[in-house]
């Protein structure tokens, strides 16, 4: 049985590799939160493989504009030209506006909606359909009628091996409507906002994943334009002894970064305050904070370490004398209990200890990954100041960090 990806790695994991063919997912959001991006992202994940339909209770052109904002217009346009993607325009007729989509129906007409959706599901056998949004259908047709339709569409979808994604704005509907929706969908997830005066951020969580019982686990997320939904890590800490290569690591990893450094007593610059960077990697978006390594800046460590989600500890593999200092810094940052990864830097230099030797010397448990990192093949060594590290190694560190945080 084919399992489909949502296009968001961690969401696939939480949903148990998302959905078997023919199953449905309900995505409900609190009013004010953008959720259509998840729907479009699910379609995008399948766009190269399958045909799919897009059910629109909003104007198709508004949907196209949204897709453009996320940077996906080329793929969607190409799929549309190839006949693999189409809209069901359920609103233009009601507004008296011209329309040119494959299906054009009046959202307030039950029979028309039923026929268009049923036929569309059959059109896209094995594909994905997006209903944006089901709450609008509930408002137009009434809860009972809408639920009857959803039940029917789910049945046809199962026969046709079509996955249906229902977007639903959680207005103040009666509780039993939510219960009925929950029961009829294979999977349920929610996207909600973190509100303090205004919506400061948002998170998603999976509430139901097929027959598997799930523990609600909020995952912070952000929406990139372009880019789409990303799991958001508000703070990753990069720390380690002086001259271990923290700034090099930051600058090699981050999409954009700033380092506060000075040429003090040494001939090359050293960090005197902090490094700040941002990285977009796979389906994650993270802000990274790097500490200085010199002891005279230790008074900053606790503040810099505060509210970190994970820690990357950079050590100089050629200098085991600095390993106790690395452990001391973890303690001073107050991040001992956080998920951490040891970045065994300078592996390309003579005398570098192997990761297992570093693990032994630092007395680390096997639950802490130690990842070897070397300078980039074209880096000119020796260097004054930070140097570019091997990207593949750096990304292995990120993979290990994300696995530590999210499992």
């Amino acid at each position, binding site marked *: 049985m084919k399992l489909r990806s949502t296009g968001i790695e961690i969401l696939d994991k939480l949903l148990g590799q998302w959905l078997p063919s023919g199953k449905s997912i309900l995505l409900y959001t609190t*009013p*004010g*939160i*953008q959720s259509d991006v998840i729907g479009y992202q699910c379609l995008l994940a399948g766009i190269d493989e399958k045909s799919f339909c897009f059910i629109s*209770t*909003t*104007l198709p*052109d*508004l949907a196209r*504009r949204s897709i453009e*904002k996320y940077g996906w217009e080329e793929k969607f346009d190409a799929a549309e030209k190839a006949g693999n993607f189409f809209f069901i325009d359920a*609103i233009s007729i*009601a*507004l008296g*506006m*011209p329309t040119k989509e494959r299906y054009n129906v009046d959202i307030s007409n039950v029979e028309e909606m039923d026929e268009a959706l049923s036929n569309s599901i059959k059109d896209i056998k094995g594909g994905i359909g997006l209903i944006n*949004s089901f*709450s*609008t259908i509930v*408002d*137009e047709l009434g809860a009972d009628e809408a639920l009857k339709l959803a039940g029917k569409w789910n049945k046809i979808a199962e026969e046709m091996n079509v996955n249906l994604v229902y977007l639903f*704005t959680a*207005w*103040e509907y009666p509780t039993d409507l939510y219960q009925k929706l929950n029961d009829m969908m294979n999977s349920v997830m929610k996207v909600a*906002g973190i*509100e303090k*005066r*205004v*919506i*400061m951020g948002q998170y998603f969580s999976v509430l139901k994943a097929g027959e598997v019982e799930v523990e609600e686990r909020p995952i912070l997320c952000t929406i990139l334009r372009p880019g789409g939904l990303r799991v958001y890590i508000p703070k990753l800490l990069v720390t380690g002894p002086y001259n271990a290569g923290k700034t090099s690591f930051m600058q090699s990893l981050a999409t954009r970064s700033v380092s506060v450094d000075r040429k003090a007593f040494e001939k090359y610059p050293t960090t005197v305050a902090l490094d700040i960077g941002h990285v977009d990697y796979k389906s994650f978006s993270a802000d990274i904070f790097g500490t200085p390594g010199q002891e005279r800046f230790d008074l900053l460590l606790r503040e810099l370490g505060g509210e970190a989600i994970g820690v990357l500890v950079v050590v100089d593999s050629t200098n085991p004398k600095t390993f106790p200092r690395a452990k001391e810094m973890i303690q001073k940052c107050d991040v001992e209990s956080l998920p951490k990864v040891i970045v065994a830097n300078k592996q390309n230099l003579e005398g570098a200890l192997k990761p297992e030797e570093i693990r032994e010397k630092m007395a680390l448990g096997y639950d802490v990954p130690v990842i070897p990192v070397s300078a980039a093949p074209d880096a000119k060594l020796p260097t004054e100041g930070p140097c570019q590290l091997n990207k593949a190694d750096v990304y292995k560190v990120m993979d290990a960090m994300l696995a530590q945080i999210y499992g």
Partner: protein
Amino acid sequence: MAKIKTGIPGLDEKIDNGFPEGSVIMVYGPPKCGKTIFSTQFFYSGLQEEEPGLYAITGLPLKQLKNMMRELGISPTQYEEKGSVFYIDLFSVQSGRAEDAVDTEIVRNVLPREMTEFMIAFSDGLKKICHNALRVRVVLDGLTEFVEINPEVLKRATKILIAKNKYANATMFLTYTEGTADPRTETLFKSMVDGSIHLDGKGKLVIESMPMTPCPIELNYRITKKGIIVR
């Protein structure tokens, strides 16, 4: 309690120096009685007081609203550049003229019927204007165009809109064209707001209710080239 200037010369002193901060005030009346002019004056006086504003317009395109502002001698450009302004245009999308319905950093185009999209635009706009501002103003001009929506949907959405507004400590100004909805809907609107002002279109302004002010208060008003004044 802090008071928020109304922007209407002669009105503030009648209601103890302005609208209570964080309140929801509705101005209603027949067509062409001055509701939008009142709204723009309220909006602009906020900008002048360093109170950023969100303006949602339903009855005409944003372009036309801005022309009206210019004719009244109101120029929010400098405040737009500072990021103190956010507009939601609920008209232009329906006009079918794509060039008039372009989203920017400070403009969002949505359909009144799409309450979900409107709520998203509203939340985004509120977040932008609340950044670094203790006091903000929100104008929803007007509720009339939402009336076609299912009354249950409208009631639900208005409730959440007002709640978000209060949570953000914004002072909200709503307009509504009298007679466009059934009496129950009109009564519903009045029950959801803190204060209501009626303009009759013939020069009579009645403050029907206002927190901490004995009402009704009957006043005369005039629409001049510079906007509404109260005598």
